[in-house]
């Protein structure tokens, strides 16, 4: 902001429409007026005092416009989904997140309803894969119709992937927290596998595409953890306290791979 202001003499001449002002001075004055509120104020005062013709012209224009302006209806209030939400979620993810929440609720009901699964807690068993489904929906060529457009945008890349992952976790974790509290499962027992699977999906997704990574991980989870646990009727050691360091290790490894390969997320376009 310049400290110098236009002289009152110049502003008065300008308000009168004085043709005697050199062109360069007019330019300088107009450029200054665009940026300087104080001088604009002085100019409007000068117009009222010095330029009755200008004031008359303005009044005429206003009196002609006002009936028309009064006749036009104000634009209808648009109901919009909040703008900030679009930065975190795509519409595609909403049904998936609803599904995650309802599956958790179902698992909770099963858990509280009866001892049909022996000692296995369905909530605990499901917790690792629930965010994986949401993450897959958030960054999938097959599920997201605007994927091609997103992949060509400057904002595509790790940050956008992380934003969407964060919103998946923001829905999944509170739901699991409530379910875990209701069933009395230790927080770390489900939170660590949940985060580990999420980071592994992203890490693997950078290599083979997020959808494929999610399918592969869900298959691994079903074969290695869920099936034996259900067959044996008790939670395997993987989900007991002994398994926690392993899950922490997977989480750290996954995060490391994601950071190391962060540029891979800008070229997801060639992965189906």
């Amino acid at each position: 902001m310049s400290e110098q202001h236009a002289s009152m003499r110049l502003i008065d001449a300008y308000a009168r429409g004085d043709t005697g002002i050199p062109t360069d001075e007019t330019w300088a004055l107009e450029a200054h007026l665009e940026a300087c509120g104080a001088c604009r104020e002085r100019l409007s005062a000068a117009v009222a005092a010095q330029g009755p013709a200008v004031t008359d012209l303005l009044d005429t224009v206003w009196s002609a416009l006002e009936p028309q302006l009064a006749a036009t209806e104000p634009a209808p209030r648009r109901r919009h989904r909040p703008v900030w939400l679009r930065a975190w979620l795509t519409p595609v993810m909403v049904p998936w997140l609803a599904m995650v929440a309802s599956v958790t609720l179902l698992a909770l009901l099963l858990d509280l309803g009866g001892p049909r699964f022996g000692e296995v807690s369905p909530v605990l068993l499901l917790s690792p894969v629930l965010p994986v489904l949401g993450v897959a929906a958030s960054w999938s060529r097959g599920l997201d119709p605007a994927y091609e457009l997103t992949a060509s945008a400057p904002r595509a890349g790790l940050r956008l992937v992380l934003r969407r992952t964060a919103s998946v976790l923001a829905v999944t974790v509170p739901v699991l927290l409530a379910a875990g509290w209701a069933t009395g499962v230790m927080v770390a027992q489900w939170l660590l596998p949940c985060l580990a699977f999420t980071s592994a999906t992203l890490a693997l997704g950078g290599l083979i595409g997020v959808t494929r990574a999610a399918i592969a991980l869900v298959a691994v989870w079903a074969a290695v953890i869920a099936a034996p646990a259900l067959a044996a009727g008790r939670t395997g050691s993987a989900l007991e306290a002994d398994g926690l360091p392993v899950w922490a290790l997977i989480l750290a490894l996954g995060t490391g791979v994601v950071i190391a390969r962060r540029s891979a997320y800008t070229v997801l376009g060639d992965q189906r």
Partner: protein
Amino acid sequence: MTRAVSAADLAPTTYAWQVRTTGLKVRVGRGRMAVDGLDLTLGTGVHGLLGPNGAGKTTLIRALATVLRPAAGSLELLGETVGGVADHRALRRRIGYLPQEFGYYKRFRVREFVEYMAWLKEVPKAKIPEAVQRAVERVGLADRADERMKALSGGMIRRAGIAQAIVNDPDVLLLDEPTVGLDPAQRLRLRELLQELGLDSCVVVSTHLVEDVAAACTDVVLFAEGRLVFQGTPEQLAAAGGPEHVGDSPLERGYSALLAGPGRNGGAW
């Protein structure tokens, strides 16, 4: 004080061509090269990308949109070499892209969708409403801007797609089959818009309709089997054909003359 013109707008241009490829190869699927050794330079103007089905037009446009990375050769966009591990963030801000299969969120309103695309393209937050309104007006959708995308007809969807492509005032605008689904009047309007945009940016329009090229393009790029067959003005394309070649107009005759050249064995079609 807010600047009306940013430093980036005043910076001198350091490239001769908006698009320059040398020996460009782009792989599609496992092994096939859909673009196979392409040498091409495109400057300011409207460039019509013509070619038979499967010529590699869409693959080339996707490579120009930095969605696909070159397998070999070099691709320079606005002076920046595309490929490797760079994320091309700054470059992508200056590209507009309408894919052939234009996917959108059905529940979004037109304005909302274009706003969302402007956000994805990192248009400064304060400029988004204005840029969106201008883009929507330019494609003639201002009166339908508050309708949901799923309520629009095919031609309007296509125009919404064009609006999102031009919302960031791109220096390189890539339109893959923009005239599909447009009725004749809309097609005329689109041609006018293309000519207007082509005055100060590089517009690449892929099409299989020869008459689109005649009406709107300053330059024709004829493309077959991943290679450049011809580049020149529509008049030069028309001059290549003679009365013995197949076609209803001089341009079509030129098109079939060049594609039927030596070493080219087309299928039954």
